[in-house]
């Protein structure tokens, strides 16, 4: 009796969970089906299998008589963008995180407080000024410029997270190394860094994914087709005023989602840890 009573809420829990989660699953399944279907009956049931929508992979998409840039240019740029962002963030993040965690220097408290404040800073409200700065640096309409902006926007968070991981490494480990006669950098490099590998992995994944998904900064600061990224490519397709081709859009979307899904499936454990920090994206 009592076990049954206990089990009932759990069944209800499965039910409720299923109902609220289903729409999300359906959303992504629709994307998949639509990309392979000629037409969607009632908007949801695929009719006639086709590969037509995937043609963009081997030939350029032509809209209104003009070809969009190749998807591979966009893919390359997105990879370049997300990759460089990740390297910069991890390198700068580790350096800053270590310093914040371990080194004693004047103004440390102030810098710690500032870093924390910047987590919640409304940085997107500052785009007008950022435009000026990029322009001044001669980095407007260049991927490198946007990479720097994006790195800067995320670095307080990254440094903070990495600092947390360093905090967890006990001083004893470092002392032991120092007593063994290694210099500080060697200790850092050979003993401490390996200990925070999970943290680095998590931060890398987070940076890569957020770079890969970036839209607003690229949309505002990139003009040239040669610097087009996948987000902008998709936006171009979407904003074509005359034709909204959902088949093509879903195929491109899926293509765009591949690394995201891959990373997601392979590494979601560490992602779950880190995303608690990623508050910037709502």
């Amino acid at each position, binding site marked *: 009796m009592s076990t049954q009573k206990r089990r009932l809420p759990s069944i209800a829990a499965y039910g409720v969970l299923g109902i609220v989660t289903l729409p999300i699953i359906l959303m992504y399944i629709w994307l998949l089906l639509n990309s392979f279907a000629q037409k969607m009956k009632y908007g949801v049931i695929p009719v006639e299998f086709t590969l037509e929508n995937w043609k963009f992979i081997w030939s350029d998409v032509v809209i209104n008589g003009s070809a969009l840039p190749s998807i591979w240019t966009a893919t390359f740029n997105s990879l370049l963008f997300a990759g460089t962002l990740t390297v910069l963030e991890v390198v700068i993040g580790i350096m800053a995180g270590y310093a914040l965690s371990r080194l004693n220097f004047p103004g440390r408290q102030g810098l710690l407080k500032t870093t924390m404040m910047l987590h919640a800073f409304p940085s997107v409200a500052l785009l007008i000024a950022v435009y000026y700065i990029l*322009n001044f640096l001669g*980095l407007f*309409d*260049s991927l490198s410029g946007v990479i720097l902006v994006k790195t800067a926007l995320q670095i307080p968070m990254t440094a903070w997270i990495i600092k947390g991981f360093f905090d967890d490494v006990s001083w004893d480990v470092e002392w032991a190394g120092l007593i063994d006669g290694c210099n500080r*950098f060697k200790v850092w490099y050979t003993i401490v860094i390996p200990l925070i590998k999970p943290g680095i992995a998590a931060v890398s994944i987070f940076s890569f994914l957020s770079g890969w998904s970036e839209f607003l900064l690229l949309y505002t600061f990139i003009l040239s*087709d040669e610097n087009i990224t996948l987000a902008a490519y998709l936006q171009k397709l979407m904003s074509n005023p005359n034709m909204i081709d959902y088949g093509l859009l879903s195929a491109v979307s899926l293509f765009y989602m591949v690394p995201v899904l891959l990373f997601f499936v392979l590494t979601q454990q560490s992602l779950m840890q880190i995303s608690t920090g990623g508050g910037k994206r709502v």
Partner: protein
Amino acid sequence: MKKTMTGVLATVLVCSSVLAGCGKAEEKKTAGTGVSATSTPEVVTLTAQTAGIEKTRVDNLVQASLKLNEELKSQGKNIEVKVETKSFDGSWPDYVKQFMLASQSNKAPDIYAIGHEYVGMLADGNYIMPLDSLKQSKAYSDLFPVLWESVTYKGKIWAAPQDTEARPVFYNKGILKKLGWSDQQINDLPEKVKKGEFTLDDMTQLAQEAKTKGAAEFGIVHRPVDGPDFQALAYNFGAKLYDPADNKLVLDKKAVAKQIQYYYDLAQKKLIPDSLTTMEWKNVHQTVVNEKNLFYFGGVWNVNNWVSDAFHDQLGKVDVKWVNEHMGMMLIPAAEKGGKPVTLSHPFVYTVSAQTKQSELVTRLLELVADPKLQTEHNVKTYHLPITKGGADDATFKADITLGKVAYMSEYTTFLPNHEGFSKYSSAVFKAIQAVELGKQTPDAAMKDLEAQLKNDLGDQLKIVQ
């Protein structure tokens, strides 16, 4: 310590390689202008940008550059001009924004094609250079004189007109037939409009008849987004939008109130689709092409849209013959009986970036691109109208069945003001129209809001006429 250095060095390297990526684009530009050996000509690369589906606007510049190169050769100049074309996809404000931001960072294209109403804004910001010499040029000597007005701002010429167009009202012949109209009557409609016998009210009433009799789902459709068409109605009601003497925009309250009332009535009588202003262009085209709607405030280039994309449920892409068989084109009927009907032209123009280092070559290129043959190529392909008499006399242009029917409309045309604040005016009026159509506001309330909005947005650039 050595390792520290390596670490720092690595970081510096990473940073500098990132920074190096951006330098490339500029190098490319200068490489082109560098002096080289006398045997190979010096290559001058000019960039030209446009937006929208009419790529002929920049492709024609490439064609013109071939001719320019011949001329240069015969003059014994060792220069070869190359035109690089770019095209932008997105809204007009975005397109202008990108040009202005690019100019700020010295990356502006040499030639920038845009709707003429942005000339004022671009001239005020020193983004473009005056082109007064074009007025004396032989190539533009037979330009339709009104078109000079469309590129004049503060007494100077700021652009070379590229094309113009007619914005007719399309009417669906099939629906009129269902209402019992004879072929003769259907084909005479444009003439009746021209004479002022068929008025705007008649048009509304006819739309209503089609709707109540079930011949059409909708009576009237207009563009779903902000655009010049709405101002044609203001002109129809006698509005003046711009005072060139004071260089101020004008809010003509009486006429604008009528303009807003017109759209309000359309919505109240359910002649337009619900929330038309939030529809996609795609749906608008589908509604028009699939015989669901009687009158459509369109543009002659829409024929190009219907021919190049599949909007028809059964036929997919339609052809020009189909369009001419199923649609008629007329002016916007006069507001009063016997009055003058109107249409609005929105000439596209080539502006020249103030940053160009080749103003002389660019000017010569603009003279060559006005060639009637090139005009015709663009006009026939994209359904626009020529800017010069020579272009209008071109045999191929004259032979076009669609364009031939609207060429007369140039006589009835009006233009948007070239004021820098006009895009704000236009978007405020559109928002007012949207508000009354969606039933969110009465015309009076919308009018009041519009006035407040314009006063706030434009300040002393606005003149209010009761």
